[in-house]
């Protein structure tokens, strides 16, 4: 039976498909939307197939591949009857348009659901806003860190510059907040260009890139303290007045960053960046101008993070200070991006929501018992994740799928 399933052309897009004792249940429509969308939005998990039948797997390979893997022969495998439920998860087709719509709807449903769940409590609403905000930052980081593979530890720097520039422009000069947000983002992108150009020109990469970007945050911290002094500057112009408005604004920002990520992922730029991440010299040898595209990725990322800076100012209570330039923030964002799986949009969202959620939960429930205990536990969670699955959340999802998909797979065999 499995053979017939494998041979089948799976429809594109996302669906929940369950087979029990040979009867198929296809939940393309009619299944409660949010559940379906939630399942569809998990990485690599968009079909679910349950069967209790004995599995017969027939493998044949009669295409002209004998030149390069003669080891694979026609192979017939009969697995014994297994009374357990057998699940098969079908890898989703990331490129399908329906996939984008479903994911987008899934994200919006999630954002609305979180709002409905937490709108009664100011603390929880602000906390959720915080999650959404950092999810957006992590998705922005995904462009330079995930796709281009440059371990950037400068996000706090770009966010701080954007935050301060847009605050000054809207508060002191009186520009419309939206315009000042865009100008804040542009100033960050310019800064990134000025920093990135010489770095990529002289081949600063890997750990040295990470160190240099972390150093930039420290430099900015000191420079800005000298420039504006160790004060907190409160803003008079406050366009966002309630937590609900702030949540809405942050959610819109997250959706925009999500769409931008999707666009990058499915464009030439995305392919080039991924090739650079995998092997810079090989990418160069097929004709990718690695310097140029790394710089482009860095500037896009700095623009997004810089534009988000203003929301950060609003979120912490309408003030700006030199303390925005905090390497701790950059490092935590890079960690979330790495656990999100370097280049997986869904993985980044899951890791940002889940890990920051866990971190905050630990803080509120443990920090008053023993100060610092929550950080210790959070660190333990991170280390455990890193040891169990270095590829992060998509790795866990993939491991889960292959575990369920394969009962016994010979080495070098065809799936």
């Amino acid at each position, binding site marked *: 039976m499995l053979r017939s399933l494998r041979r089948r052309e799976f429809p594109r897009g996302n669906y929940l498909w369950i087979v029990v004792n040979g009867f198929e249940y296809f939940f393309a429509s009619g299944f409660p939307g949010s559940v379906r969308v939630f399942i569809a939005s998990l990485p690599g998990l968009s079909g679910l197939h349950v069967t209790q039948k004995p599995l017969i797997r027939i493998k044949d390979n009669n295409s002209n591949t004998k030149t390069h893997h003669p080891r694979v022969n026609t192979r017939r495998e009969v697995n014994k009857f297994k009374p357990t439920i057998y699940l098969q998860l079908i890898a989703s087709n990331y490129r399908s348009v329906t996939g984008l719509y479903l994911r987008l709807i899934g994200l919006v449903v999630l954002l609305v659901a979180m709002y409905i769940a937490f709108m009664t409590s100011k603390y929880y609403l602000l906390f959720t806003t915080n999650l959404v905000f950092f999810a957006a930052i992590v998705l922005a980081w995904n462009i330079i860190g995930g796709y281009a593979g440059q371990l950037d530890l400068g996000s706090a720097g770009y966010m701080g510059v954007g935050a301060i520039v847009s605050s000054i422009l809207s508060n002191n000069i009186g520009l419309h907040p939206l315009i000042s947000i865009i100008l804040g983002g542009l100033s960050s992108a310019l800064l990134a260009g000025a920093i990135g150009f010489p770095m990529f020109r002289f081949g600063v990469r890997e750990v040295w890139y990470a160190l240099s970007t972390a150093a930039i945050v420290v430099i900015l911290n000191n420079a800005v303290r000298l420039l504006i002094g160790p004060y907190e500057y409160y803003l008079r112009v406050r366009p966002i007045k309630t937590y609900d408005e702030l949540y809405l604004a942050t959610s819109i920002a997250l959706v925009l960053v999500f769409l931008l990520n999707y666009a990058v992922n499915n464009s030439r730029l995305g392919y080039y960046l*991924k090739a650079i991440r995998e092997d810079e010299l090989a990418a160069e040898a*097929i*004709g990718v*101008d690695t310097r140029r595209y790394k710089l482009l990725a860095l500037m896009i990322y700095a623009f997004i993070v810089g534009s988000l800076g203003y929301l950060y100012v609003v979120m912490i209570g309408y003030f700006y200070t030199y303390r925005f330039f905090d390497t701790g923030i950059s490092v935590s964002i890079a960690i979330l991006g790495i656990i999100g799986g370097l280049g997986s949009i869904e993985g980044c969202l899951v890791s940002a929501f889940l890990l920051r959620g866990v971190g905050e939960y630990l803080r509120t429930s443990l920090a008053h018992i023993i100060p610092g205990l929550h950080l210790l536990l959070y660190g333990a969670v991170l280390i455990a994740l890193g040891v169990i699955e270095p590829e992060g959340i998509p790795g866990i999802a993939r491991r889960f799928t292959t575990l369920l998909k394969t009962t016994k797979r010979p080495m070098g065999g065809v799936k």
Partner: protein
Amino acid sequence: MSTLLETRKLTKRFGGIIAVKEVDFKVEKGVIKGLIGPNGSGKTTLINCITGVHRPDEGRVFFESRDITGLPPHRVAKIGIARTWQIVRPFKKMTVLEAVMTSALIRVKDLSVARSEAVDVLKLLGFTEELMNRRGSDITLVQHKLVDLARAIVLKPKLLFVDEIAAGLRPVEVEGLIDLLRRVHRELDITMVVVEHLMTFIMKLSDDIAVMHEGQLIAEGSPEEVAKNPRVVEVYLGMRV
């Protein structure tokens, strides 16, 4: 036949070692040229100097009578010189198809066109649809080498350097590769320089052979001539004791 590639007195030093010494290397259009020599004779360094990975210390490189000395690798690739790597450089977290598509995207701007071109090339090299959708981390060494080759030929280069593609493969696989390279040469009309230190492989494949030893070209000619050349026999097979 016109000259496609020519190097004039190309020299590359690494510290005190001269890896390539005043090499005049010529490739005619439309041939499969073999480049052989013992390990460490400077074959790969010569390729690296031509494709821009290393900058030659002295001498010039001409491609279609145009001076391309010292151009960065991505410019060289766009001009029409592609290469494969002696040690495979796989894109492990991308699928085979995505890796080859990336290469195709250099030439065509549209994703779906790039995808179909990548599929065509992969099919020519014997990949099944199932294999194309595997990730780079899940395929074998031979398949890696073929993906490497696919990434290079999907660029539709005028000249292709195949650097020790047979290294580490079993004899059956090597036989398959010879047929495959011939087919690529014939069907896609790509001039090739095949670098190898396996004598049999190169003898079967190439029209014309150049022999390198200690950074210098010591012989050039048809496979038969080269095999008879006493100097080649001496440095390549070792002297009879």
